[in-house]
């Protein structure tokens, strides 16, 4: 039986909830370079315990200007400095402030089809593998995909 144990990645990157958003962004870049693939989300681990997940989407939401709905009305307003302003804020806002805390997890014995069902139903692309309260790996949707389609190709 093929389970999470067989397809999970064990060399994953994680963040601390106390890390600033700008440092987290740096880590996304580094992790993507080192792993040779785009890292879209990272587990947030505090004292060895999984406390949330920070995805690129969470950071992008933070980047969205507060008054974005006004921009279409205010084409003449010079917005130079807007990015700089958000970047300077990203130093005081922390991972723990914007991470997603409702995180689905699986254990190493979860069957691949159960993983597939969870990912499809909840529209998620990564599932932490937790055992005895400790994160031992993560299953990315790409790992699942290539495992499942292996026999097709």
């Amino acid at each position, binding site marked *: 039986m093929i389970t999470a144990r067989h397809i999970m990645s064990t060399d994953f990157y994680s963040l601390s909830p106390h890390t600033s958003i700008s440092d987290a962004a740096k880590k996304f870049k580094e992790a993507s370079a080192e792993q040779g693939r785009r890292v879209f989300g990272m587990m947030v681990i505090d004292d060895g315990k999984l406390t949330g997940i920070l995805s690129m989407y969470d950071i992008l939401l933070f980047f969205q200007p507060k*008054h974005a709905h006004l921009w279409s009305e205010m084409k003449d307003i010079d917005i130079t400095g807007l990015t700089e302003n958000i970047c300077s804020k990203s130093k005081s806002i922390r991972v723990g402030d914007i991470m997603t805390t409702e995180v689905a997890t699986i254990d190493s014995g979860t069957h691949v089809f159960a993983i597939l069902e969870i990912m499809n139903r909840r529209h998620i692309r990564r599932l932490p593998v937790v055992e005895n309260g400790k994160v031992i790996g993560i299953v990315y949707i790409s790992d699942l995909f290539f495992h499942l389609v292996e026999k097709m190709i």
Partner: protein
Amino acid sequence: MDIKLPTDGNSKSPLFSRLRVEECMRRRAITLRADSSIDLAIRTFIKHKIDAALIVDEENLPAGVVSRTETMGAYYAALPVEMPLGDIMASPVIRCSPGDTLESALSTMQQASIHRIYVTDASGRAVGSLSYPDIVGMLYKYCYNCDFGLRKKTVDIEDGRPRYSVRETMTPEITSAAADETIEQVIEKLSSFRLGALLITDGAGRPTGVISKADLALAYSRGIATSEPAALIMSTPPQLCHQDESLEEAIRRMILKEISRLFIYGASEQDVIGVLALSDTARQRSGSCHACSSTRIKVKE
């Protein structure tokens, strides 16, 4: 704060009675459940850069509202951040319909002393919300398209119609707290004067920072005790603006800095004499010109 329509014979402003809520509302309402924690609400505020979330029941029907005012109250009362939102939410939810006139929505907001109103459809579910910054944006569009607007070069702008300055629109009073006062004292001042943010001054009375309800929510979520000094959680430096600055420039700065108010100085930056809220600017319609003052709305803190 509430909004008053002019009572000087112009109470039926043609613009506001013509415009419908659906033309100005924000077409998305961020919702949470009553059993979600206060901490989740605060993190939702930060992530989505919003000031309030609508609390909905199992059928997605509005059950209450939690704004930064409610989280500030919970912080003051030292409630645990794990507490469910159902325990602190304000209800009932004040609402209007997409087809209502802007004038009637504003008058409902004024009567209820609220900053935002939720727009619900026939099924009772929220389809959007309307707040003062949304109205500022909508008003600005009219100014932008107006022949007398600052950016239109077709009409000579030196036509004798003076532009609004910050001085005419600001609230010419200032309440501040010293940097060594406690967070608890800051909250007391914010709530007794019904302010959105408080200027923090140093030992010599110079402006050194600002504490807004957003700063308080962040401190609450991070577990900082209210007995700590204001200096620990204030945002620095304070965003200041000269009283003779044009209102348009002030609006631009608030939008850029993602803040809702600027502190206004007179003779020098040490001499803060008033405060300008983004919602106050709705009162001057668009902020650029007296041409449309007949459709002004009055905003009162």
